[in-house]
Every structure is written in C-alpha cells, then in structure tokens.
C-alpha cells in the first residue's frame, strides 16, 4: 500500500511539474556504425532549449528492427511515443495496420505548410524518397535521413591490380573483370554484409540494377523473388563466391566487412552511404566510392528512415510531435545531421545552404551518394515485411554458403513469402465483390 502511495505521489509530482510543457518522447534507432546516439541527444537538447512549451526525451531504441518492435509494444500498451524515426520501409506496414496516423490534415493545418496537399508537401523531398513516405496517396512518413548502397573501393588495391581508380567499374561485366584482377591471396575482391536486413537491401539493389522491380511498389501483397531479374542477381552473387571466388563464402556481418576493408583484406565493399562518415574516420589509406554497378539500368533502393506519429497520441501531443518533426527535417538540422552521419539529407533545400556546398566540395564521396539518388527507387515494403524479407534472406544465405542453387532457394523463398502475405492478400486483392 505504501508503495502504491509513493507511486501515486511520484506520478503527481511528475505530471504536475510537466504541466507547463507538453511531454514527448522520440524513439530513435542507430542503424549504422558511429557516434549517432550522442549527436541525437545534442540535437534534442537544442530543440528543448528553443521550444519551451515542449519537452522531448530522446529514447535510443536499438536497430531499425528493435525500434519497430518497441514502438509496436508501446502502441499496444497504450503509451505510444510522440514520434518515431522509423525504418522507411516499415511505414507501409504501419499504414496498413492503422498504427501510424495519416499526416494530411496536420500538414494542411500546419503553420509552415498551410493548405498544402500531400503531393505539394512531398515536393520538398527528393523524388525517390516519396514512394516509401506515402501509402495510397496519403502521407504517413516524413523522410529524415536516407541512404543508398554504394561501392567503396581502395585506391591502393586498384593501383596494385593495374586498374584506374578514376574509372571504377560501372557495369556488371566491368565489375566482375575488376574483381578478378583485385582478388589476391589475403585480399578478397568484394565483401558485403550478409546478415538480416542488410542482405535483403543489397540483393534488392542488384535485382533492380538487373532491370527488376523486386516488389510491388504500389501494393504491399506481392514480391518477385522468382523473377529472372532477382534470380539473375542471386546467381551473380553465387558465381562471385563459387565460380570466380572473389568473395568469401558464408555470411559476413557489417563489422567483419568494414574491418576487412580497413585492413586491406578486401579491395571493395558494398555498404550504405550512411556509413560514409564512419569509413572516412577509420580508413587509413585512400578510398573512393562509386555507384552500385549496373547490368541493365543504374538503380539502387533507398534506405534510411522517416519520422512517423503513432496512433493513440492526443491532439495536443500530435501538434507538439509535428513541431518536432518539422524542426528535425528543416534544411538546417537535416543538413547538419547529413554532414555528421554521411546519410544524405532528404530536404532538397538543404543542399542550397552554403555549409552543404562547402561540404560537398570537400567530400566528393558524399557527392557520389547524392548523384546516385537520381537513379534511386523505393525500398522493399510489404505487409509482414520482416518475415517476407527474411524468407528471401534465408534463401540467399543458403546460396552464400553453397547449400542451395539460386533457382531452388528463390523458389522456396517465394513460397514462404506468399504464405506470410496470404492473410493480407485474402483481405485485399482477392477480396472480390459479392
């Protein structure tokens, strides 16, 4: 009983002292290596100092997948965070399940965005980012930081192999030719992370560069794992490991890949633009970055995160959350975060700022990342996206380890993905008029 009294008293004290300002929590993930969490804390302190009527607590919630899990749990417990920096490809699922609120009316009534339609509002962001932020014409996410996969390569390794570091391979044929020259005892041609989440992203990029779509950007109930473009991409990886032997067998995680790159044990790696700053800080020898090589077209999926406002927040908290979302995605803040992390800023206007122009001039690698954005596509998003993605990743991991052929692995993956999508498909595409 005494405990209960003490708890009640504490609650009263907390709520009492907070009456003046709206209390808000922001869930944020740190998906790439680096000191991102400290910088986020600093930003939120800056926000709190300039917005006396709102008090935001930044809550570090782990990886993208962990953040998703914690947000769901908080929503179900009836205590949703005010805003969440959510992996951009989860936004569709939040929209489908009604777990995030559509932002259309908040946008139309917002001080800065008065009277704007969803499409007008989205005009402030790079076109490739709009696909994952909207669902069925409504805005559910506001892009915060974004990335694409890049090819990082060691200048020394290129010179050593007699390749011109100024002209990195652009097509798959040039890529494979280069990798076979770069491969030496003690140095692999290429490595990329084969762990869950990262692997699906890289494979979808290769499938898109092979002319494919990989998933249905307009409808969350379909994936194309057995399409020739996907099977071709997985076969390329299989051959890199088992035919040309320019990549180590089995699954490597991001730490293993970057460590190998820093130590010169791999000549190239495929990694997110979000890791640009981390690589810049740790790589001791010269390196450069280039587009993901193409087979039929230049293409790469976007990655990164959007801000969402979960359901279950009071109108007062929604308004405060919108203020925070607007502030975090303003050209100044988004630009600063971009320079700190290596992610590119989703706001087009951020690149008109003098700091950003100087930064791009000093860091040509960041410029390459921005240039690739012109060819970027939406990020793989479906109903039950983690499970549907894992079905494919399990298949590719079997290929990486030499335990399955690309065709068999992808057929199995398609079957499992369809079983996971089935409940949604039955209630949508297959729910026909009576």
């Amino acid at each position, binding site marked *: 009983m005494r405990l209960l009294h003490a708890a009640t008293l504490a609650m009263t004290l907390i709520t009492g002292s907070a009456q003046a300002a709206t209390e808000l929590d922001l869930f944020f993930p740190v998906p790439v290596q680096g000191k991102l969490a400290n910088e986020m804390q600093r930003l939120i302190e800056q926000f709190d100092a300039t917005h006396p009527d709102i008090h935001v607590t930044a809550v570090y919630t782990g990886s993208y997948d962990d953040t998703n899990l914690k947000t769901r749990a908080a929503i179900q417990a009836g205590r949703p965070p005010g805003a969440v920096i959510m992996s951009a490809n989860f936004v569709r699922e939040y929209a489908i399940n009604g777990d995030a609120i559509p932002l259309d009316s908040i946008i139309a009534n917002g001080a800065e965005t008065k009277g704007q339609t969803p499409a007008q509002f989205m005009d402030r962001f790079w076109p490739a980012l709009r696909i994952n932020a909207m669902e069925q014409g409504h805005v559910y996410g506001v892009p915060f930081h974004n990335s694409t996969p890049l090819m990082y390569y060691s200048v020394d390794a290129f010179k050593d192999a007699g390749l011109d570091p100024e002209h990195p391979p652009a097509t798959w044929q040039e890529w494979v030719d280069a990798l076979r020259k770069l491969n030496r005892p003690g140095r692999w041609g290429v490595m990329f992370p084969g762990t*869950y989440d990262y692997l699906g992203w890289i494979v979808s990029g290769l499938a898109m560069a092979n002319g494919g779509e990989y998933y249905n950007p307009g409808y969350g109930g379909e994936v194309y794992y057995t399409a020739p473009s996907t099977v071709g991409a997985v076969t390329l990886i299989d051959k890199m490991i088992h035919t040309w032997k320019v990549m*180590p067998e089995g699954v490597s995680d991001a730490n293993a890949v970057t460590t190998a790159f820093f130590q010169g044990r791999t000549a190239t790696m495929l990694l997110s633009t979000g890791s640009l700053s981390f690589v810049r800080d740790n790589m001791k020898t010269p390196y450069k970055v280039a587009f993901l090589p193409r087979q039929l077209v230049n293409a790469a999926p976007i990655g990164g995160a959007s801000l969402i406002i979960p359901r279950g927040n009071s109108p007062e908290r929604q308004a405060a959350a919108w203020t925070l979302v607007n502030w975090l995605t303003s050209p100044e803040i988004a630009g600063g975060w971009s320079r700190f992390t290596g992610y590119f800023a989703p706001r087009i206007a951020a690149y008109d700022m003098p700091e950003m122009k100087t930064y791009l001039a000093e860091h040509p690698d960041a410029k390459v990342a921005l240039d690739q954005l012109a060819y970027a596509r939406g990020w793989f998003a479906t109903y*039950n996206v983690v499970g549907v993605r894992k079905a494919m*990743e399990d298949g590719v991991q079997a290929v990486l380890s030499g335990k399955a052929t690309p065709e068999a692995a992808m057929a199995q993956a398609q079957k499992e993905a369809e079983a996971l999508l089935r409940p*949604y498909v039955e209630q949508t595409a297959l729910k026909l008029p009576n």
Partner: protein
Amino acid sequence: MSAASTTPHSVSLAPSVIAARRRIPVAWAAYGLLAPSAVFLLAFTYWPVVQVLFGSLTVKGFRGEAHWGFGNFARLFADPHFAHAVRNNLVYAAGTIVPSLVLALGFAVGLSETTRLSSALRAAIAMPMLIPLVAAASLFVFIFLPNAGLLDHYLAYVGLAETNWLGDPSMALGSIVAITVWKNTGYYMLFFLAGLAGIPGDLLDAAKIDGANAIQRFVRITLPLLGPTFSFVLIIALLNVLTQVDHVIVMTQGGPSDATSMLLFYIYQQAHQNYDVGLASAATVVSVGFLFALSVVSLRSLERGIHHEV
C-alpha cells in the same frame, strides 16, 4: 482485489494452524504479509500463463474475426521452421548439457580440496557466470570475427586458416554451443562442489579400509551420493537450454539460414517479427509442456535411483 480474495486458498494450511491459537487478527496479518507476493505472483506469473493458453487457442487473421480452435497448433506442426528450431534445440541441448556437466563434475572433483591454488582456479572457472550472457555474446562477436578476431588470430599461429565461425551454417550452432558451455560450466561446478562437501568422509574412509581404490570409491560412493545434485543441475541445465536466447539474438539472429534458430527464438520471431501471437503462444505451450514433462520424468527417475542406491 480479486488477487487478495484468492490468496486464502493457497495459504490455507498456515493460517488455520495459527488461527486455532489466536483467532482472526493474526490470520489477517498473515494474509496481509503474503498479499504483496501473491499479487505479483498472480499478475506476473499466473495471469500471463492463462493469457498464453488463451492466445494459443485464439485463431485470428488479418482484419478477420477471431474464433476458438486448434488452428494455431495445426499451423505450428506444419511449419518447417518450427521443426528446424526443435531439431536445433535438441542438438544444442545435447551439445551443451553433456559437456558442461561432465566438465563441471571433473573440475569439482579435481578442485574439491581447498588450497590456495584450487581456490584461484575455482574462481577462474566460475568467472564466466558473473558475466551477463548478452555482454558475453557481444564480446564473442568480436572474438569470432573471421581473420581479425582473437580466435582466428591465435589459430593462425598453429596454421589454421580463417574461419567464418558465425557466418557458416555448419559452424554457427557449434560456436553458440561453445560459448554456452564456457558460460555455464562454472555455475554447475559450484553445485557439484557443494554436493561433494556434503558427502560424509567416514563413508569414503570405510571404503578405503575395505580396500576400494580411488576409481571404485568414486563410482560406488561419490557418484551415487551426488544423485540429488545431478538431478537438480540437470533440471537447471534443461531450463537454460530453453530459456537462454540472448546470445542467439546478439550473435546470429537465428541465421544463417535458420541454422541457429531455437525454440525461444522461434517464439520471439513469430510474436515480434511476424506479429503472429497465436502461433507464438502455441509454440510456447508446446515447448513449456515438453520441458515440464521432461523435468518431471527426470526428477522422478533420478530420485528413484537415489533411494535405491542409498
């Protein structure tokens, strides 16, 4: 309130004895003292158990109506990933319980005499149990790093090439088993040390006088008398096999290709990645039921053995 009103049933014996002497006030005091634990026990142990049972029998699809049935269990037994998790868990159980128990017993017997050296060695062997599993797993991620990691660094001196300890489906479960044995052996050793200390010295002396050699004394006296300790440690080890999942989450996420997926991780995935509470609950009911049955059987048979021998 409902919690308080149900407590009398679970504690009916003690208050009735006391009430005979002093009547109501003491009984109330007893209920009052037990109530806080009862509330927590009901709210955080029994109520979730009931919820899981209900959840396992509730069948619900996307936007569909929920109804009762055994559909979740039917789906569970048809799921190849579940079968895979069961198989992995059995390999993991055999791979961790047998070596850690044998090692723990060996260390306990070897270090049962208290000297300065043996105390230091005991402390060293028991050390891993002080490290939280999640922290140990995070450290081992770096130790297992191919080529650059500590393990490969030292193995290179004996001419072994780089190994992808966690990224090769045929190695990953073995790596997980290895850190579990490292982590648990010291803990089990402590129980065996306590068990050895409880064996009366005169029994061993009598056997010595009768001409039994060291091996005979160990096999005929020490081992049988350690029976209760064995059954206890075995139950603890069985529980660990099912309830420890931190290292899987940190090191492999069940991969590559499901090679390290185990029952609790499967349950976690269904509940939190696929949001399939029905399937997760059914898997929980099946695995806890199996573990419960196994514990009862092993306790019974070991206890029978003990009574027979002593």
